[in-house]
């Protein structure tokens, strides 16, 4: 059984000695079951999301260097050395898998990547790797990724009444509203 047999496989990439398989987000449950049962990835090391808003484009909050040069008005910004490769969608969900007890062909560690647009849901893998519970809650809380079928998808690090998802690139730094600012 090789990586090519993963359902919904889009592409396989090798970089820095790590293997990444991009999987169709709509078929993540199938792919996860296959990876767990057939390929022996019994251990979910990590599940996290990345926001690629403004990747190599206009500066957004918390990001000043851009593809065309540096903003001389802001010190400490070197220009990008080259334009980064465009990304298919705004969010990437990375599943870092590992074999601990089981064995099989292919790499010991594997990164499974699923791409999502803002507001697009992805199926939860809690029933396959129970350890995904808090990781998915954190990805929801911080990035606003909705995991369908998660038994308890509520905020985990921020307070229950928090508005917004603080780790998104368009969420300002020091984002709490301050009274008595200059504008008042």
């Amino acid at each position, binding site marked *: 059984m090789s990586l090519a047999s993963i359902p919904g496989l889009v592409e396989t990439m090798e970089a820095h000695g790590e293997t990444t398989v991009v999987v169709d987000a709509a078929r993540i449950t199938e792919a996860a079951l296959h990876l767990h049962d057939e390929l022996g990835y019994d251990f979910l090391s990590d599940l996290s999301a990345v926001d690629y808003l403004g990747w190599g484009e206009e500066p957004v909050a*918390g990001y000043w260097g851009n593809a065309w040069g540096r903003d001389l008005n802001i010190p*400490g910004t070197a220009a990008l050395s080259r334009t980064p490769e465009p990304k298919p969608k705004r969010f990437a969900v990375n599943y870092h898998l590992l074999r*601990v007890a089981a064995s099989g062909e292919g790499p010991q560690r594997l990164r499974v990547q699923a791409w999502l647009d803002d507001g697009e849901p992805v199926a939860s893998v809690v029933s396959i790797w129970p350890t995904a519970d808090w990781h998915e809650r954190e990805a929801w809380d911080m990035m606003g990724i909705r995991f369908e079928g998660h038994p308890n998808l509520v905020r985990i690090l921020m307070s229950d009444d928090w508005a917004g998802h603080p780790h998104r690139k368009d969420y300002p730094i020091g984002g709490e509203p301050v009274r008595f600012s200059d504008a008042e």
Partner: protein
Amino acid sequence: MAATQPRIYEGTRIPSPTPTILRVPDELRESADILEVNFGPNHPSTHGVLRLIVQLDGESVVGLQAVIGYLHTGFEKSMEQKTWWKAIPYAPRMDYLAFQANEYAFVAAVEKLLGIEVPPKAVWMRMLLLELNRIHSHLVWLGTSALELGAISPFWYTFRERDRILDLFELVAGARMHTRYFQIGGLAEDIPSGFFDQCREFCEVMPKAVDQYEAMLDQNPIWLARTKGVGVLSAEDAIALGQSGPVLRGSGVNWDLRRAEPYLAYGQVEFDVPVKQNGDVWDRYKVHMDEMRESTRIVRQALDGLPPGPWIADDRKVVLPPREELHTSMESLIHHFKLVTEGFTVPEGEVYVAVESARGELGCYVCSDGGPRPWRVRFRAPSFVALQATATCMSDALVADMIAVVGSLDTVMGEVDR
């Protein structure tokens, strides 16, 4: 489709449907007098600010839910605002007991993206310090966990040795905690000459000290009663719940990243991986004790095997020019200034580096867009994952066992909440 039917954790002790919440059974909710107790967030035995909502039926725990986030500081987001160079000090502040492991994970991830080679002296010194740091973390764990179960003496003894380790860190880096001694490319400074003798002295003392701790606890009837058979976690459950480090090894899984995926110079030193079979609090305690002995063994071998040579890579793109050049060379001064203010760029890409910290698999995912700042930094904190096992360990346990169980999972809340 049959293959896509989600599964629930049959035949395991993992609560269902939510693996981290122990729910009161419906029949009990009606028949028994359930008392709901808030444990924490401010309670000395929560190792920080952990809140546990516990439902009690008399003395036994029938429902449990861990609530975290009280120490959330947004380290990961803050690191995105800093240049690569300035992001390093954030990492050790997450896990404030095994600080150098976090520091190493981040530095190693950036080095992996840069493709920079670290000189052997720095590699060995990093390994030496990481092992000292592991002992440091285990000592604090042992002292405080024993203290929570009523054994006051070990606390004083463990902090005696802990102070010796902090003295060593101070000697090397100038700071006792959060040393920021690992620099991208190697070490921040050369190793001071007095370090080796003092460290050798420590290696003589440490094994005897571990014997002392065991002499205090191993025969102690209260300690035995409160740890043996308490908070059992099976090997299958531990793997399913993503447990790592002493928790996983205490459950009978022979898994140590230093052995499975040797990094630094771990492939060149001899050490054993302690594994215990029962998965209770006692076995986790025993794994910690044996690990301290093994770490001392590694430190001793690292002292003997430390190769001479440079302590940082000779790559002026990312490494600061030597201090003495700043007084004589204008170019070096400008270069130093630019590296500190503007930073350097790291090639586009994403890496995940996993190291065996004192608590288990510490993963650092770093994504770069080729710019002067990290695009995304993510820490897979072992404590965060360990806390998810609380509900499984606590099924059919008594309320007093809760302290022992939470203690044995060895969590640091700074790392849980990041």
